[in-house]
């Protein structure tokens, strides 16, 4: 049996060595409260500000433009609410986003809708890519915010962030991007890409859980979600989680240094996975063939259900994920796959693989072989597959 192959890095990543060392250092040496005036507190404050400078540098921001949060979800919530309420003060109560955002964005928008905001969710087309033209067509005089994710977390498609950013800047609309799947994995420059607000999460790039950040361009209004202290320039109350923040900064620096090599390796892995899995009959690659990140491959296999596939893959030593209803925690399959226009029964049979760059060629082959064997095994006991093969039900893919 080969070693356990972790192919779910879009869910979370193993905490890296640099992050762990930085976290230990913060816990052992910088355990004072950064708000305290004595030396120990100020030493912690120095660690906090060094982390801020390091994080800012990776995305081309100024340290003063970074707010540390508990993660990507909090950053998304804060960005969207801030832009919505700032817009409302000027009579602008229209918000634009896409149908396949993370729920941290979608659920915040739903709440705002109940508060009287109008929300437009853009269609993401069959290929899972929103264009700047789509955004332009949806803009209204009262649009307060455009929020478009940089990389979709389930299918890995990459959005034209720079084009959308330029459009929004020209039209004077705040542009937020949920870049949780992009930061640390692809080059981002908030100035060149005309990004006003950007959300990131540490544990997607080798940092710890419980840390993230929100970039807010100087001059863009932002308000706190959590009241109770002057931390983060009055924008995020609560004693700073310095071990996690220091771990995030160290992980991000390491990720940025290794970004080019990681992308090259993962692109090769991705291409092999796509070629190997496409050979399975009635399979479908989800998301645009070209405009996608190096690290994510998402397939549907007709006639099977995703949870069964995941459990049998786990037994074969492979950790992956699926957008089936049984794994989504709800009764419907993934909203991302449905947004692509996939029928429910096809979306139930989905598989997401997001390996790390450490994966070996042998492990990639083991994944392809295992998926092929398991899909065949599940189809052999599937009444849906039986009906498809007998012509009682039309093949959809």
């Amino acid at each position, binding site marked *: 049996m080969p070693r356990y192959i972790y192919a779910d890095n879009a869910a979370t990543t193993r905490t890296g060595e640099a992050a762990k060392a930085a976290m230990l250092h913060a816990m052992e040496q910088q355990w004072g409260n950064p708000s305290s005036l004595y030396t120990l507190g100020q030493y912690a404050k120095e660690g906090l500000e060094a982390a801020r400078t390091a994080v800012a540098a990776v995305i081309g921001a100024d340290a003063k433009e970074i707010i540390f949060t508990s993660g990507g979800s909090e950053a998304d919530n804060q960005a969207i609410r801030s832009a919505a309420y700032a817009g409302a003060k000027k009579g602008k109560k229209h918000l634009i986003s896409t149908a396949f955002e993370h729920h941290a964005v979608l659920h915040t928008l739903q709440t705002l809708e109940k508060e009287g905001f109008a929300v437009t969710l853009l269609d993401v087309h069959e290929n899972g890519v929103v264009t700047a033209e789509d955004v332009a067509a949806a803009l209204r005089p009262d649009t307060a915010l455009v929020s478009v994710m940089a990389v979709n977390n389930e299918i890995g498609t990459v959005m034209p962030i720079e084009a959308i950013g330029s459009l929004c800047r020209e039209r004077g609309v705040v542009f937020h991007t949920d870049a949780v799947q992009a930061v640390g994995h692809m080059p981002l420059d908030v100035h060149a890409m005309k990004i006003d607000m950007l959300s990131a999460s540490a544990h997607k790039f080798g940092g710890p859980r419980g840390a993230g950040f929100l970039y807010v361009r100087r001059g863009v209004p932002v308000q706190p979600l959590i009241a109770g202290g002057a931390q983060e320039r009055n924008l995020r109350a609560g004693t700073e989680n310095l071990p996690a923040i220091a771990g995030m900064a160290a992980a991000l620096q390491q990720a940025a240094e290794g970004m080019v090599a990681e992308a090259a390796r993962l692109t090769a892995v991705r291409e092999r996975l796509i070629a190997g899995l496409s050979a399975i009959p009635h399979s479908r690659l989800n998301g645009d063939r070209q405009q996608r990140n190096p690290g994510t491959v998402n397939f549907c296999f007709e006639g099977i259900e995703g949870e*069964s596939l995941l459990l049998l893959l786990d037994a074969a030593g492979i950790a992956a994920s699926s957008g089936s209803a049984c794994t989504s925690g709800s009764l419907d399959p993934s909203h991302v796959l449905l947004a692509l226009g996939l029928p*429910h029964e096809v979306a139930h049979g989905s598989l997401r693989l997001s390996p790390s760059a450490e994966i070996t060629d042998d492990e990639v082959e083991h994944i392809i072989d295992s998926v092929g064997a398991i899909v065949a095994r599940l189809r052999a006991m599937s009444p849906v597959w039986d009906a498809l093969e007998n012509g009682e039900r039309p093949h959809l893919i």
Partner: protein
Amino acid sequence: MLYSEKVMDHFQNPRNVGKMEDADGIGEVGNARCGDIMRMYIKVREGCIADVSFITFGCGSAIATSSMATEMIKGKPLEEALTLSNKAVVEALDGLPANKIHCSVLAEQAVKAAIKDYYDKNGIPYDRELLCTGDCDACHMHHE
């Protein structure tokens, strides 16, 4: 673990799995749109379930409950098989997560649908109240 050892055993090594070419009754319940369909085949001899098999499209618990249900009715008189409850299937599997209980309901319905099909094909009268009519859309019943 999400599932008990028994559920995992029946999922990974399903009993009585496969199509049956000369079945006396076939019952299919569920809905592909909702992610689970069970089809159950029975062979009847002298009022007893002489053989049974299933094929299932669905999650781990859907496959495991199908497998367990076939074991529980094999060799039993039809009247007794009709009394199989989803609760008994769940207990035999050492429990299911709350959001998977509907899988056991499907298993119970699949058994009833197969027996009903046998009764219908052979012109055997039965108490309609006792049997799931087969057209109750399991999906809507349990997903709303």
